């Protein structure tokens, strides 16, 4: 990989001050480092934020669970608070990558990267998350703007993600057999007054599948989806799965998720 200057920072101010148009924040590095190794990305400055204490940790209130951006997947998976408040979120974290990825990878890194087949973005959409950055709050539906793109501005740092606790929820995915990322992942969450069906892997960016959500809002059962038709238009088509297959799997995995709620 191309060389860079490594900075380990102790607070958010220091980190954001170092940021420039040719810098990247480093948390777990699970995507940043491989893309640099493959020559797909290079930076002048790498700003390590893992030692900023306030960015890590899990807090639960009656209505929400807030997870610091450098909290590792393994910590979310094992967190008693998360397991109690939103068990599907702990299960999602337990299913990301492999144990070594979960020991390093962070929630903030995952959503800032916004890989179209990553798991966490679907949780943010399904659980009406609010992304807290160093200078504002962004609601999840405004945060994920496109393939590997978010509404984060250059040098803006995610501090925490606040998830709304649903009445019930479940995440189900069909993993790509090679990468183990989602070919299709569906996160169904039933809140007091709405239902979200966040889909990852199927399109260039995570989205809320409204047709399924509205059917479930009327009747929260998998049979209510029998007559819902999911169009394959706009869906990804690649060597692993066609758009048609993905469209069908969105419905199948939504049903599986509802049944497992």
């Amino acid at each position, binding site marked *: 990989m191309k060389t860079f200057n490594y900075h380990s920072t102790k607070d958010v101010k220091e980190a954001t001050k170092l940021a420039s148009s040719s810098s990247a924040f480093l948390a777990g590095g699970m995507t940043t480092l491989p893309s640099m190794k*493959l020559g797909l990305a290079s930076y002048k400055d790498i700003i390590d934020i893992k030692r900023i204490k306030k960015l890590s940790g899990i807090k639960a209130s009656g209505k929400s669970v807030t997870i610091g951006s450098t909290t590792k997947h393994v910590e979310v998976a094992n967190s008693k608070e998360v397991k109690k408040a939103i068990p599907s979120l702990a299960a999602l974290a337990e299913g990301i990558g492999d144990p070594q990825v979960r020991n390093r990878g962070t929630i903030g890194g995952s959503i800032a990267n916004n890989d179209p087949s990553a798991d966490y973005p679907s949780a943010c959409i399904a659980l009406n998350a609010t992304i807290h950055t160093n200078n504002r709050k962004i609601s999840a539906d405004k945060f994920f703007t496109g393939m590997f793109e978010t509404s984060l501005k250059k040098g803006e740092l995610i501090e925490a993600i606040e998830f709304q606790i649903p009445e019930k929820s479940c995440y189900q995915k069909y993993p790509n057999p090679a990468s183990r990322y989602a070919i299709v992942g569906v996160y169904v969450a039933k809140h007091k007054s709405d239902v979200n069906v966040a889909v990852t892997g199927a399109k260039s960016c995570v989205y809320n599948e409204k047709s399924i959500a509205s059917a479930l809002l009327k009747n929260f059962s998998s049979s209510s989806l029998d007559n819902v038709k999911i169009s394959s238009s706009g869906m990804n088509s690649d060597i692993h799965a066609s758009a048609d297959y993905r469209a069908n799997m969105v419905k199948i995995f939504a049903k599986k998720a509802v049944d497992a709620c």
Partner: protein
Amino acid sequence: MASLVGSRVERKEDKKLLTGRGKYTADVTFAHQTYAYFVRSPHARAQIKNVDTSKAEKSSGVVAVLTGKDIANDKIGGLIAGWRIKSEDGSDMKVPAHPPLASESVNYVGDHVAVVIAESLDEARNAADLVKVDYKVLKAVVKTDQAMDSENIYKDIPKNLCFDWLLGDREKVKEAFDKADKIIKIDLINNRLIPNAMEPRAANADYNPSTEEITLYTTSQNPHLARIIISAFNGVAPENKLRVIAPDVGGGFGSKIYPYAEEVVCSWASKKIERPVKWVADRTESFLSDCHGRDHVTHAELAVKNDGTFLGFKNETIANIGAYASVFATVTPTYLFGPCATGVYKMPAAYSNVKAVFTNTAPVDAYRGAGRPEATYTIETLVEKAARELGMDPAEIRMKNFPTEFPFQQTLVHSVDSGDYNAGLKKAMEVGDYKGFEKRKNESASRGKLRGIGFCSYFEACGIAPSAVVMSLGCGIGLWESAEVRFNPTGNVTVFTGSHSHGQGHDTTFAQIAADRLGVPLENIEISHGDTDKGPFGYGTYGSRSLTVGGTAIVKACDKIVAKGKKVAAKMLEVNESEVDFKDGEFIVAKSNKKKTIGEVAFACYLPGTYGEVKSPLPEGEEPGLKETSFFDPGNFSFPAGSHICEVEVDPETGNTEVVKYTAVDDFGTIINPLIVEGQVHGGLAQGIGQALYENCHYDDTGQLVTASYMDYTMPRADNFPEFNLGFTCTPATSNPLGTKGCGEAGAIAAPPAVMNAVMNAVGTEVSMPATAEKVWNACQKMNKSNSKAA
């Protein structure tokens, strides 16, 4: 002393590998080391108009930038095709030149254009970015079945056709087909695979200007072959000035049998710059430039009578051999494929016709099984289809056509010395509880899953030999194997073998053989391999040959040791040689019970004198020392065989397919170390199931490799497999004194048809490999439609 043959001896090589003390090529670094990084073609097919190295040469840390012109100026020869095949019309195969660094054209993505050598890998890589290559991009030829109808890649190779080969008799086949009640037809694709040994290829060449000797460390299954090719064909250095060492090697599976451009370039460059040059592939380079495997498009037909008797078989195959003809690229789809395509059956008439085509993809060569998986997949999916169409049980149709007399003259080439195919299949049905399948199927159905069962009965020809025969068929090398058994003066033993172990456990199995033969404890025997300066010339490890051919050479060398030892012991014991017996490491005179241990005899051979008197233990004319060499060239191939039964479970909602039960019953002849043999079967099965369900090399229409990392190429993982059930039958081979047949490739040969037949049984239609969720899901949709129509 109890025999070690048949004993589950733990491996002698394990401790170093388990404690991080193994030494792989990438672990070797010399003083004054330089690092090489290759500039590779980003295009599948292009002319090279110009290579500008001026900026790269000025980059920090750069020692040299060498191009195709440089290598041509130094008259370094190209890479070779090692097996000459003749077409049906008698003409010779056509092969393009394959320079280690291209100067005129590049023919696949990853083809070698230049090498940058620098003080560090980072500097070499950075400078490689500065090498400016002007390409004129040409339309790439990618698809196997379209290659003959595409533009010629090489101007003197019409239709991109390397050869159009025939084995068998078209007339006889026609007659057989005319008599048939039914013709079963199949069109199939044997999917292209990427071998993916976990250790990426690497080379480190160290030229010593004062001795003019190059020492080349390399990831090779076959260091002697690497030496003779780099020396005799590439002309880098004379054989006596080239030492090739293949230290611990992290798997090969065929992809490391022969030298590649990188070894040639590093050796040549080291001589040029008079410093050691090290290259270690990253995984992307491995994907792009390791030779790939399989890639056949086949149409096959089986002529049958209504009672299930086979009358004839024909096989028309197009084999993609990639951009250049690699060393075993031409034999893999011909003599390793065609003869085995009639399977384990009496087949009165048959032919195999193979057209090998060039495409703008990485070269294709031997990969675990090499030709025999393709053959077995063809015949075994065809036989299963015949059973379906004739309404017969898949076991019954197989048994009906098995030969029962051995030796069995197989239709196209082989005289199979021994086997009992009925016993194998019956045992597989027992071990796999065939009777209980319906019950298991119903249980799966109760969970909404479709369960299918598939059979495969296979045989394979391995331990390739004899040299005179294979050379008459075009082989460019001999296929014997060597061993040197060296008693050290203090009574322990070093055994040198020309084969090479890169996971197969030779250090243990070969020591077991020598320990039994010489009566020396296992721990006093060391196996040495992988260094052309140590043991005698040999032919390396591939084609399940090492134990059968190399192990026999050890036996024969041990026998020579014992023969000499008898003479010496007789002199020492003052009896006639005929009175001396050898047993359990001791030379004994039966009538007096006087004895000398083999260690005492060895000591006497090395110190042939007596203090205080002029007296030698050596008989008149006998030379001192105790070391014997043997070169074994077997009289026939060996023929492992077996029957495998696979059960899969399909989720009709998603198409997800899992192997839920797998039974393998194999006949490998005599088994020396069951622990190691079972491991070989497991590994082969994982690769075979991998081919059937997961693995697929995919090039897009422009010749870009889409599956160039583990993100897109599915490597099977632990959670993809159930626990395999293994069983064995044994009919010893008659072509070698050990009775062994070879076990390394069986799993990769038998599993693909067993799995695919099971998938087909579950979903009712043919599915191509790999049976991805989407393909199986589509098959389920079709089945649902036809079921609802029927209802």
